[in-house]
């Protein structure tokens, strides 16, 4: 009798202890971001860190297929486009439920898209061309555009495109700001994972949605640690405290990868580009030409990216438009030196983006060294994106060059021109304006034939380069370093640094 009691007590104690233990590591995917997730509101921020989390919490109407820029249905089972290119009709899956248990209907999609169109939300511009929306029945959602837009479906599939938020947020917690505050730290999506833990600046945990309408994902939990230092992330990966590093692993160290780690290399839509502030020292076209000569990527690219980048072929990444030849930089260094020697002493400031800061700083240092070679002294400074967005307000205080790896909204070239090069582009950092270029962009944006479309966009690229407003430098390949045994990472070229948590598994 005594032994039975003792056995029962022992079992009870073990059960108690087991309850306190963390979930078995086999069912937890551990990843790290270098920066914190700003918000879980899919309509109000431009995050690069956190896209993959948003991608498994929320879902849009269409998405890109893994490994390609081809579109496929997501919440939409199928869709059709009218002859005039103005009306898009989406047929929704019928068994989709939000995380709060409510069934998805077309009315919910309509309510969400109406929110997304609110001009006070940062990403409302994705729906700028939408004239009207309606939900004629529970499973049909219809969008009518003001003018044909061949890039519209790509905009919907964008990493920052519309992703349906449910009535649990938009009705129950709308508050006075259309759920903006609530969505910073909550969600009501339809995806395979839901947020179960938020420790700002430290850790986020996504847990599997057991009522998910699609295929059940492998991992019980996705644990996201905020680890700003790449050196620390690398140590954690080596020790087995992380399963993968999605971006920022130093290129030079990929040759010395410890055993047990694997590489996944793919072309994404990132393009290393320098923006030129033509209001300060570089207003002089001759000096700009000298700078172009020095910055010729052929001279420094391999030392910056160790074979994981190629010289840019145009102002579009090659996964978007495959131009035949690299950009033709001037190469007469002696002439460049003579130009600089004839001018008053030149000191330039090179700003660089703080996303993937270490990579950008290295590239900036190589550019500074290249400029030093022709007699131009350069200083470097890192700028967070929100500061860079203010450059155009005071060009005299802004850097002379701004270096960043840029990601367009989507795989269609209209999203590249519309985001970076047109007069009204939100990431046209130095406010470059050229009515002629704007006309060319407008015309190209309306072309649906792919070959003709690409030809027109390449003409725009050549003209922008000739004007030295934007300098295309390198097509950088994305590298994911992961622990041996993981499969199904399924990156998509149009989604920067995104691993598909829904398909990933451990063998």
């Amino acid at each position: 009798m005594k032994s039975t009691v003792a056995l029962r007590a022992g079992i009870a104690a073990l059960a108690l202890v087991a309850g306190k233990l963390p979930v078995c590591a086999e069912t937890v995917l551990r990843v790290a971001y270098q920066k914190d997730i700003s918000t879980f509101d899919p309509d109000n921020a431009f995050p690069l860190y956190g896209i993959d989390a948003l991608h498994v919490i929320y879902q849009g109407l269409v998405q890109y297929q893994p490994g390609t820029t081809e579109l496929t249905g997501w919440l939409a089972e199928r869709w059709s486009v009218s002859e005039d290119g103005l009306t898009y009709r989406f047929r929704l899956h019928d068994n989709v439920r939000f995380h709060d248990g409510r069934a998805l209907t077309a009315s919910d999609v309509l309510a969400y898209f109406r929110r997304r169109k609110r001009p006070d939300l940062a990403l409302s511009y994705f729906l700028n061309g939408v004239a009207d929306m309606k939900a004629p029945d529970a499973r049909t959602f219809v969008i009518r555009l003001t003018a044909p837009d061949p890039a519209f479906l790509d905009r919907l599939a964008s990493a920052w495109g519309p992703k349906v938020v449910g009535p649990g947020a938009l009705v129950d917690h709308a508050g006075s700001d259309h759920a903006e505050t609530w969505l910073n730290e909550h969600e009501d999506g339809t995806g395979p994972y839901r947020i179960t833990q938020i420790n700002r600046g430290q850790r986020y945990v996504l847990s599997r949605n057991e009522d998910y309408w699609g295929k059940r994902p492998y991992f019980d939990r996705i644990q996201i640690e905020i680890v700003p230092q790449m050196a620390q992330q690398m140590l954690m990966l080596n020790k087995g405290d992380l399963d993968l590093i999605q971006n920022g692993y130093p290129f030079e160290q990929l040759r010395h990868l410890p055993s047990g780690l694997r590489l996944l290399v793919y072309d994404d839509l990132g393009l290393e580009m320098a923006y030129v502030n033509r209001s300060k020292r570089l207003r002089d076209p001759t000096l700009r030409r000298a700078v172009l000569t020095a910055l010729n990527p052929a001279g420094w690219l391999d030392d910056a990216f160790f074979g994981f980048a190629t010289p840019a072929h145009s102002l579009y990444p090659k996964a978007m438009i495959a131009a035949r030849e690299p950009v033709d930089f001037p190469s007469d260094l002696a002439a460049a030196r003579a130009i600089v020697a004839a001018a008053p002493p030149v000191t330039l400031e090179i700003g660089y983006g703080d996303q993937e800061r270490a990579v950008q700083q290295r590239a900036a240092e190589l550019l500074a060294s290249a400029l030093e070679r022709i007699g131009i002294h350069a200083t470097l400074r890192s700028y967070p994106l929100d500061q860079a967005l203010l450059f155009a307000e005071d060009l005299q205080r802004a850097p002379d060059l701004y270096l960043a790896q840029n990601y367009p909204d989507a795989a269609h070239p209209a999203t590249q021109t519309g985001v970076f090069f047109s007069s009204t582009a939100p990431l046209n950092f130095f406010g470059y304006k050229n009515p002629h270029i704007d006309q060319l962009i407008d015309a190209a944006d309306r072309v649906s034939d792919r070959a003709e479309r690409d030809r027109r966009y390449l003409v725009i690229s050549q003209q922008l380069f000739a004007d030295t407003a934007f300098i295309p430098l390198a097509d950088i390949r994305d590298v994911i370093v992961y622990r041996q045994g993981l499969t199904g990472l399924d990156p998509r070229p149009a989604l920067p640094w995104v691993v598909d948590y829904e398909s990933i598994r451990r063998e």
Partner: protein
Amino acid sequence: MILRVLLRTELRTKSGALPLIGLLFITLLAVAGPIFAPANPLLRVDTPYLDPSFQHWLGTDEVGRDLLSRILYGIRLTWFPVLAVIALTSAIGTLVGAVAAAAGGLVELLLNRFCELMMVIPATLIALAAVASLGPGTWHLVAAISVFWWPWYARIAHTEIRRVATRAHVEAARLAGVGRPRLFLRYLLPAALPSLVVAASLDVANVILVLAMFSFLGLGAPAPAPELGAMTAQSLVSLTTHGWIPLSPAIVIFILAFTANLAGDGIRQRMEST
């Protein structure tokens, strides 16, 4: 006078002489280092990550610049700002402390309370915020650190002057009709100087470390300036594969601070024994 005492006492023993010689050597390197640098520290001269070799004694950094050249220039970028901080803060502190001691009464009370206020403020954090808002730069950094560094010197100057002011020879001078300015410059200030020199010499190592920390955090001279702290920070990610790149500047920072500390300690001992 002080220099004479120092040289006489320091050089007399090996243990005292070596750190002082080390300090002089560092200063000499800071002044003349660029002459010995084999390459322009801003120019890429070879392939990145080359191991130390006869051609590049410390190898090349992650950009392909000669690491030895960058370190030689880096010593200058560290040493002169350190001397500037010490000179500036000791001058301001001495002036404030002397004025407080000389004026007495309400002025003394107010200045002393103000010094105490400055001393309890978390100086490094405020300096961090100041440099972050002014923008990175050596002289911004020197200014931000100096603002919070001087009260220690003010306190020493004040205490020393007050202590000496009650001594018999000062009283005698005062009774003999020596005017206040002369009394101050001839009798009081010189008496405070040895303690201030000791404090300054011991402070050099602290300032080196603080400057290196700011530079490590990216708040020193803008890149690609070869600042030792920034060089360490930038190449830290290579620690496991190309360890000499982050370690070389870090070791130089250690040697600078260690030498300065030894010299300061030596000076203190000698001052106390004379």
